[in-house]
């Protein structure tokens, strides 16, 4: 199991962050203003990309500048809480483990409800869920009128319950006994709208997909969420959270018009002046997607949901947010625009190989003189702010998601209707290489492009330099392509070899197995040691 504390342990040096700001600005200014342009269109595309990078870097530094935050907490504050476990067809044993843990939480005044959406989702086991709830002595609210997916399910339960606070867990997110003891005390502040705890993946060690998912989470639930506390901008993630009923009512309930209902609801609560808090302690344990297809779907859902908030809900012009909160929301949402910038950057060497086009006429060593210190400072900053948890794999998966992000952007701009899909937690077997098609095509284009460039201008410094950039890009793509590939002996060997280079010493993938068998899941779930989420995973990450 991955560490539950290390990702929360960073205390970055302000000197390092300040140096990074200076270098980011110097790099941008030098690149933008000190060199003659090459191809004019490429130049402006490059500059637009660099403006985006600078925005990302500066807002990250702004967020991570101060991670310490103290909020008023009264351990004796213990109002009534309704605990909701959202279910839409997940296996009964998985839901049971979560419900039992919720029932047994140490808190004087809470009642557990399973929000059973199996009936409206036409899942076969909806009645079994009702029976299980009765057996273990928790409430069960089975919705008969469909609509609004997970948000609609919660809103329905809100109408049927009365406690002033509601805690929400996804079906696989098993709360610790002290979850309510460590979160409810913050509601002593009457303006507290919601309190969010980290979304910890206890199955992170299973395969490359889970470990990469978790390592991306570590950056988000580490420095980003901790930094957002200072700015009263905690992100609502849809599970492992407690919400004030009053705040939720004022926000119009859970937003059932967005596939990122949690993120949008958090935004509406903030707009109405409510406070929020992120508790930097693992208080519940869930599961990461275990196969490449599920990971891709999850990423697409997050991206599309976020971009909807930007385009459909007009994030920039909405009233009620403070400037700090607006910056935080824009920063989170804009991460999903990075796909366009990544695609543009990786294509630059290809444009040079095939057409000799360059955006800037610059001596490559002069560029190196500015870029290398800048990027190494950035690496040092990422390492420092994430307490050395953010990994090569995580950045590789982030970068390689450019295809998903572009697809999400297109669907958001064109207003395509996208249904709420549930992330499968049972590893799906198969060949998902089609999902890495852009990356494979890129490699082919590079292999053909290098000889084309050499034939045109010999083994010049520009050719060597652009080829090196392509090696960089391909090096980033390889873990992603391997994760998409079907399980074979060759893949296992290759993954093991790649792991020796890129995995941190103490948090490596213990097994290269992609699929966990159903029996294994059931055994683990029954043992109470683990739980596997099957559906209803509707969390919002807002990661960069």
């Amino acid at each position, binding site marked *: 199991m991955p560490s539950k504390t290390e990702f929360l342990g960073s205390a970055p040096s302000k000197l390092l962050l300040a140096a990074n700001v200076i270098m980011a600005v110097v790099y941008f200014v030098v690149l933008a203003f000190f060199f003659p342009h090459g191809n004019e269109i490429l130049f402006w595309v490059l500059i637009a990309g660099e403006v985006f990078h600078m925005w990302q870097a500066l807002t990250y530094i702004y967020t991570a500048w101060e991670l310490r935050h103290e909020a008023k907490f009264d351990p004796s504050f213990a109002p009534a809480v309704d605990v909701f476990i959202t279910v839409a067809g997940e296996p009964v044993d998985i839901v049971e483990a979560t419900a039992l843990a919720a029932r047994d939480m140490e808190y004087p005044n809470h009642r557990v409800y399973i929000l059973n959406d199996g009936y409206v989702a036409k899942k076969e086991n909806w009645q079994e869920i009702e029976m299980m709830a009765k057996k273990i002595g928790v409430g069960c609210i089975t919705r008969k009128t469909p609509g609004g997916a997970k948000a609609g399910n919660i809103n329905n339960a809100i109408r049927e319950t009365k406690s002033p606070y509601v805690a929400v867990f996804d079906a696989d997110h098993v709360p610790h006994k002290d979850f309510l003891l460590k979160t409810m005390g913050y509601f002593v502040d009457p303006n507290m709208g919601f309190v969010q705890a980290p979304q910890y993946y206890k199955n992170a060690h299973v395969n490359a997909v889970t470990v990469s998912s978790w390592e991306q989470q570590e950056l988000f639930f580490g420095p980003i969420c901790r930094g957002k506390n200072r700015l009263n901008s905690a992100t609502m993630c849809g599970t492992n959270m407690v919400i004030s009923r009053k705040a939720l009512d004022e926000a119009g309930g859970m937003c059932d018009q967005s596939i990122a209902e949690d993120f949008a609801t958090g935004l509406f609560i903030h707009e109405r002046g409510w406070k929020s808090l992120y508790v930097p302690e693992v208080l519940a344990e869930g599961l990461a997607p275990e196969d490449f297809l599920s990971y891709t779907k999850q990423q697409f859902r997050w991206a599309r949901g976020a971009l909807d908030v930007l385009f459909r809900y007009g994030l920039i012009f909405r009233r009620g947010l403070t400037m700090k909160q607006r910056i935080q929301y824009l920063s989170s949402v804009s991460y999903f625009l990075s796909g366009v910038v990544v695609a543009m950057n990786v294509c630059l060497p290809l444009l040079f190989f095939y057409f000799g086009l360059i955006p800037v006429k610059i001596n490559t*060593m002069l560029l190196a*003189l500015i870029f290398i210190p800048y*990027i190494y400072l950035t690496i040092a900053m*990422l390492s420092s702010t994430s307490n050395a948890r953010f990994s090569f794999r995580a*950045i590789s998966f982030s970068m390689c998601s450019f295809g998903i992000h572009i697809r999400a952007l297109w669907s958001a701009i064109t207003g395509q209707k996208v249904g709420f899909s549930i992330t499968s937690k049972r590893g799906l077997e198969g060949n998902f290489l089609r999902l890495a098609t852009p990356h494979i095509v890129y490699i082919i284009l590079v292999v053909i492009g290098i000889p084309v460039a050499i034939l045109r201008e010999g083994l010049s*410094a520009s050719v*060597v*330099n652009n080829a090196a*950039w392509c090696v960089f890009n391909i090096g980033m793509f390889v873990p992603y392509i391997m994760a998409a590939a079907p399980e074979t002996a060759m893949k296992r060997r290759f993954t093991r070899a790649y792991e020796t280079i890129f995995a941190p*010493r103490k948090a490596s993938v213990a097994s290269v197995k992609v699929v966990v068998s159903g029996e294994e899941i059931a055994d683990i779930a029954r043992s109470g040691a683990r739980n596997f989420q099957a559906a209803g995973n509707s969390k919002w990450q807002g990661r960069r």
Partner: protein
Amino acid sequence: MATRTIALKKQSYILVLVALAAALSLFIWMRQSITLDEAQSVWQTSRSLSGVMTVVAKDVHVPLYFVGLHYWEILFGTDSFAIRVFSLIFFLLAIPAIFALAKEAYSVRVAYVTALITAISPFLNWYGSDARMYSLMFLFTILSHLLFIRLWKRPSRTTWFLYGAVAMLGVFTHLFFLFVLFVQGLFFAIKRDIFPRESMRHFVRIAIIAGAACLAWFVYRYFAGAGLTNPVLARPSSVDFFNVFSNFFLGFQTDQVNTFYLSLWPLLVFAGFTFLARKEVRGPETAYLALASFVPVGLAFIVSATLQPIFLSRYLIVSLPSLYVLVVFFLASYRGFASDFALSALVAVMLAMLVVQAVQPSSPVKEDFKDAASYVSANATPSDLFVVSAPFITYPVEYYYDGAARLTTFPLWDRFAKDAVPQTFSPLTLANAAGDWTKVYSRVFILLGYDQGYNENIRLFMDKHYQRLDMKTFSPGLTLYVYKLRYP
């Protein structure tokens, strides 16, 4: 027993590396021609102690190495072999020293590889056999790092005393050693909490003593006429910046090879990302060694670009020990075969470049004054004139030259006059000098090297007015032209 065996293994390993470096020096580097700087070392030290102090004060350097070489020459003479052995000793001592540094900072594994790449480093092998102060500066830098790290890990009175002594000796070996002390001050300011409480007092005391000694030297220099023989250095470009690091690892290669390697810099960025989640790289040792590796190069570059050019890779040898330790440590932080592969590749590339540097005559650092002088000795007659330009290459030329033709410089330089500096070049002085040569001599052998901005003017003038009889390039940037001045 096991501990003794391990200790014996370590000692044997280091001895083998020392023997390897010594053999490389004796069989390859010692056989090379003496360079301009080496000849200048001999010229500066072949006099009384007060004379040595005076000429060094007029130059850009500090006296420790030259005083040492002065006494060494009294014992062993000024033969090129003898004066180079003086430097070789420091280089050989640096091998166990860097082993100790890497072990102190990280681990025995890192120490083994760091010592190995030190022994086979093309750059260090070159300066390890160069009759200049660089190998001594390298040794003092290592010792300073070692003692400085011990100051926060396991301080003692002896460590403080030795650290202070090395600081003083280092400053009087080369002024760039001040960069080492600057980095240590910077690190202390950033990470003061890891040092014992009384450290501030000790550092201040050492700084005052070293500062006072430096001040005394600068006052002495001022009255001796400092800076009269300052070399003219060009402002460094971005390529020069990266060439320093290329030199450190790959030695002195041709522009073509350098361009190829340097253009691969995006791979360095990629490597950086692979170290992202390695907690072990975040200790204070890494922060200190990173500062020691890059701050001197960065500062020297900034000073050179804005104030006064001082950017030479050999001066920046103070960055090298920390850089070697750091790079080996990072590569060793990979797991399993990847670590072995990366380290083996580093060793293999450095070894290959060492061989290339040794066998390739066009290696840019080579200065074949020996063959140039021998050629003129064999071919010039008393009716010929041997002219060298820039004037200061007369030092290595006269070290080897024993021909019949008169040796002079252009522009004219009377080195033995008080506060002597070469005359200023102008087309008129060249025309006048050529006119004077024509009156007396039948041929002129002009050896052009270390271009100070006018070598091409000389060649063009002579080509235009006189018949060129011969041309021969002995090493990069060192070419001999023979012209007929008049017919007998």
